[in-house]
């Protein structure tokens, strides 16, 4: 009798651990239970079935269940870990909801007018339906491009100065004032550029270059801030190893520090471009807007996509839908432009980045 009473074979490594599928099963049960309860309430009160309510309730069930189960099986520390995992994933899902909703709205509304004519025509002599944003796309690319050409070198070199060279009061002053600069409201940057150019060209001045200057004022601090952050996390060991091999400082920066942080810098610059490419208020003031194509940065008004979106929305004619469709299509185009730029930056960064183990 006693010989048959062998204890079950236990694996000491997996003991006290939940099975990999347990959380998913729990989640499924929680959601089902929540859906059931919500459905019951719905049928009782006659109100509409609330999907959001069911998911929220289900998530709550899951949170409680997984913590209790884990606490019983795995102990306090693991339970905390499971709790935080659920919370982080939950935070992610909650945050994605408005972002996805926004993107969805733009794509759905924007696709109505996302056609060939939209990219081949300007708005000159167009009333009501038809027309397009070719002039605005050109304006946005020219002005944002110019702003980028001005601010990326200044921003990147300033970041290099702060991280690699800067010591003492000047570096502290620059760090501090870059922070201050991040706080310049976009509309103030526009007013500043307007006042600056009005000195030279009179009060009626509207030109694309002034818009680019306003954008550069907004862009520089973002470039500095993100590049500085990325350069700082390059381990000192890399620099020291390079110096020890007798490499001059500037070559060390160029060949070791910058490539190591290339991906981060690319992200930073993309963020900076993304930050300014959607600016409306300053461009409305200094670059004005027009219905016609303009390739010259230094003369006449220049349309840009955000301003195009804004004016299409704000000055709707009688045929409201045509104006709204164009506005949404403009927003969609803007996002796509950033997407392409982003992709390009990532490819470039990948080409430069050293092969790391992760």
């Amino acid at each position, binding site marked *: 009798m006693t010989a048959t009473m062998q204890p079950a074979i236990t694996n000491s490594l997996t003991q006290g651990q939940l099975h990999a599928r347990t959380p998913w099963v729990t989640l499924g049960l929680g959601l089902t239970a929540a859906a059931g309860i919500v459905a019951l309430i719905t049928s009782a009160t006659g109100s509409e079935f609330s999907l959001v309510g069911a998911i929220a309730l289900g998530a709550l069930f899951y949170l409680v269940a997984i913590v209790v189960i884990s606490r019983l099986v795995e102990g306090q520390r693991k339970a905390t870990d499971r709790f935080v995992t659920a919370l982080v994933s939950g935070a992610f899902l909650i945050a994605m909801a408005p972002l996805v909703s926004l993107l969805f709205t*733009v794509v759905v509304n924007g696709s109505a007018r996302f056609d060939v004519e939209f990219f081949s025509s300007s708005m000159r002599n167009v009333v009501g339906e038809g027309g397009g944003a070719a002039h605005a796309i050109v304006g946005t690319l020219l002005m944002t491009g110019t702003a980028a050409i001005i601010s990326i070198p200044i921003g990147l070199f300033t970041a290099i100065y702060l991280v690699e060279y800067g010591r003492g009061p000047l570096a502290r002053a*620059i760090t501090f004032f870059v922070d201050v600069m991040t706080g310049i*409201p976009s509309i103030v940057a526009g007013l500043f550029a307007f006042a600056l150019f009005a000195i030279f060209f009179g009060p009626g001045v509207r030109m694309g270059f002034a818009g680019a200057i306003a954008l550069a004022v907004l862009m520089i601090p973002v470039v500095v801030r993100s590049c500085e952050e990325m350069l700082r996390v390059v381990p000192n060991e890399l620099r020291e190893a390079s110096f020890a091999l007798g490499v001059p400082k500037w070559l060390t920066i160029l060949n070791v520090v910058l490539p190591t942080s290339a991906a981060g810098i690319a992200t930073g610059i993309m963020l900076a471009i*993304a930050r300014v490419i959607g600016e*409306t208020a300053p461009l409305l003031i200094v670059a004005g807007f027009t219905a016609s194509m303009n390739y010259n940065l230094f003369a006449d008004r220049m349309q840009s996509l955000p301003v195009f979106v804004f004016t299409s929305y704000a000055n709707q004619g009688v045929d409201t839908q045509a104006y709204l469709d164009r506005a949404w299509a403009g927003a969609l185009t803007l996002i796509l432009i950033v997407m392409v730029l*982003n992709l390009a930056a990532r490819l470039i960064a990948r080409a430069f980045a050293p092969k790391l183990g992760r």
Partner: protein
Amino acid sequence: MTATDPKVRTVAPQGKPKQRLGDIVFSRTSLISGSAILAILAAVAIFLVGQSVPAFVADPEEFIGSPASFWDYVWPLVFGTLWSASLALLMALPLAVGIALFISHYAPRRLAQLLGYIVDLLAAVPSVVFGLWGIGVLAPAVLPAYTWLTENLGWIPLFAPPVSGTGRTILTASIVLGVMILPVMTAICREIFIQTPVLHEEAALALGATRWEMITMAVLPFGRPGIISGAMLGLGRALGETMAVAMVLSATGIITINLVSSANPSTIAANIALSFPEAYGVNVNLLIATGLILFLITLVVNSIARYIVNRRKDFSGAN
């Protein structure tokens, strides 16, 4: 003779190391770039102060709406600016850290890249579109929740009735602001979390730490300056955001902490956008003066953040 001067040979090794041309050019360029920033900022500051002075000395009777004094006009705007921006930051910061952690340490690698990419893209959505989305999608969607809050939690001053008829309240504006600043903050946090030294993480895990314990021990302390940096960038954008707030917020210029009613304080930036087109005479100076105050607010906020970051410099690789 052609032999080298013995004096030079003995002096050279003791003096400063030879400055290479590349080094000089490189360091000078960096220095000039840094100084250029100071120059630009000085120009902006001179412009702001110069244009603001008339507003400080003018008779307040000439201002729009004839406020009792300059500060009487500015104070509700300052309140609204700080109130909406801090609400936005309060909502967005935990979410941004959560998303960044999810992307850097929880999600599968391939998925994480895609997610990070989507979040980056959203930073480019123009504020006008956030405004359109706020009016058309978000405000109607949150209205039932606001109604419920006033009916059931109306005794809390934050949710005191009557509820807004359109949902375009300061809470809605703050949610829009929060969504707007999420991508920037997430991107910076994510980049810094990814940079956490693998050795630190592996050491923590090897000691038997759970994933969360590893994050609290290795990732968060390392990423703290980055989190604060990101939060500041986000806050800067929230404080200065113009178009989205102007479009979404039902601003009537009163001071209230009520989150769900029609009457809300306006913000400085939105007020400039709303009033500037029709402003003339000293009112233009008045609006620029409010811009100067916004500038100063950001300065103070950033100084505090910088102070916090500087106290914990030891985790930075370059120091």
